[in-house]
């Protein structure tokens, strides 16, 4: 993985004319950039510190940014109008249309289960202790499409450390809001509500795993899972649960919603794996969404899928000795 240091990056890439960045301050933050870079993706520094200068609106030309593999980013519009969020409907365009009136505040998160510091927290208190970072991650959906998106968030590990899981805790289970009045898609049982997901504790505390509160330097829109969602870039997107209201430390493996709905198609681990096909389609390739996908005559952009979505050097060790075909 490429850890980019400030002198690697041509200034034309980092400071296009529309960006208001204090150049000297950026170079002074080199240590923060490198250390943060060890965790994965390309970090643009600590979002709050670097870009939010008093009174100045932060403007970044995201089209100039690249992932650690040199990939172009998708546009804000693509990332916020093409969503799988069945709580607002099963069509890709449903969430943006039907989540406009959803009010993500006030919001509280409950921390429960095998931990020393359970409790219910207001969202602001929950995220205040952490430093927000912008991370460019690939998002690979199990349906075999993908995007490259700059998420804004903080490591899940921050929250887990504060909760202090006990020795009994092997997994973390997450739950989405259940409120059919505010989430019209929940009025039909296309999935069993509320949506549940989970991670093994080592996956949850991995540096790549983040809780996202924003993307493209802006707050999460409702259709992307406002106000808080999970991002685990080496797993299929359905693991990235949205609208989180509860975290629970458990001894037993959580039963995640898609594995309940269609157990022979969706499992718990859901690691991106080109060698293990979905029963109904190949996982060896993915449609990397681009302008052409939404263009005049829509076109597929098939590219080969990478093992662990290209994050293998940082995550593969967690699965040594595991049969990833049976633990799909």
């Amino acid at each position: 993985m490429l850890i980019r240091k400030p002198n690697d990056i041509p200034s034309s890439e980092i400071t296009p004319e529309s960006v208001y960045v204090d150049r000297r301050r950026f170079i002074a933050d080199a240590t923060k950039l490198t250390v943060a870079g060890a965790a994965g993706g390309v970090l643009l520094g600590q979002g709050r510190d670097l870009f939010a200068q008093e009174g100045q609106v932060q403007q970044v030309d995201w089209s100039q940014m690249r992932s650690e593999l040199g990939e172009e980013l998708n546009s804000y519009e693509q990332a916020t109008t093409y969503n799988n969020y069945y709580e607002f409907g099963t069509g890709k365009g449903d969430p943006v249309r039907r989540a406009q009136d959803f009010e993500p505040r006030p919001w509280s998160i409950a921390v429960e289960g095998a931990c020393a510091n359970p409790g219910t927290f207001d969202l602001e208190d929950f995220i205040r202790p952490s430093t927000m970072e912008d991370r460019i991650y690939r998002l690979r959906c199990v349906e075999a499409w993908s995007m490259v998106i700059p998420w804004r968030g903080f490591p899940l590990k921050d929250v887990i450390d504060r909760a202090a899981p006990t020795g009994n805790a092997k997994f973390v289970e997450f739950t989405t809001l259940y409120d059919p009045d505010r989430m019209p898609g929940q009025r039909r049982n296309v999935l069993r509500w509320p949506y549940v997901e989970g991670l093994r504790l080592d996956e949850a505390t991995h540096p790549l795993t983040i809780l996202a509160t924003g993307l493209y330097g802006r707050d999460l829109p409702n259709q992307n899972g406002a106000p808080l969602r999970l991002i685990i870039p080496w797993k299929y997107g359905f693991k990235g649960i949205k609208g989180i209201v509860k975290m629970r430390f458990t001894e037993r493996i959580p039963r995640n919603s898609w594995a309940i709905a269609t157990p022979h198609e969706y499992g718990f681990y859901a690691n991106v794996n080109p060698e293990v096909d979905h029963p109904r389609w190949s996982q060896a390739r993915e449609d990397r969404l681009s302008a052409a996908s939404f263009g005049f005559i829509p076109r597929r952009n098939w590219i080969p899928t990478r093992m662990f979505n290209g994050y293998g050097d940082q995550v593969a060790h967690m699965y040594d000795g595991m049969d990833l075909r049976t633990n799909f």
Partner: protein
Amino acid sequence: MNRKRQVLLLKLATWVLGLGPLSWLVWLTLTRQLGVDGVDTLLHKMGDFALIILLTGLAITPLRRLTGWNVLIRIQRLVGLFGFFYLTLHFLTYLVLDQTLDWEFILEDLTKRPYAVVGFAAWLLLIPLAVTSTRGWVRRLGKRWQKLHRLVYVAVALGLLHFYWQVKADTLWPLVAATVYVVLLTLRVLPRTASNRLQGEQ
């Protein structure tokens, strides 16, 4: 209105209704209204139209019996052919826009993945039906023509299975379509005496 004019109007209406969906899809494409999932939208809508039109075709005989409007038989072939037309468009969209003519992946799909296998089989079954839809073939095959064309029920059933297996979680429409199919099949199979009388008219 005399019979000849009835038939003409009926055929005109069928042509308009038959080409309507395609025109709508072309218009959606030209005005960039396909939405965010363009290829999937085209694929699904073409599949929907093919299914609706084929089910309409299956409804003609029950409708004739219930209403006595025998003139409907004059558009049955046209309706069937439109169904085959949209199904072919659906298949071509899959091959060209969805799979980008990547034959390795296409072969894998069409031979290994159940939903694709039955979909492909449905289309294949309709080919001989489309080819033998002309009056020349009706004469040539005689009694066997009727038997051959009963395969349309098999093809539509395979199509329904394809539809049901293809959706991820929302099985509402596949189940609705299956219900319609079962009703039409039942209507077709049941009133034997009425059926014999009507067939005498053909």
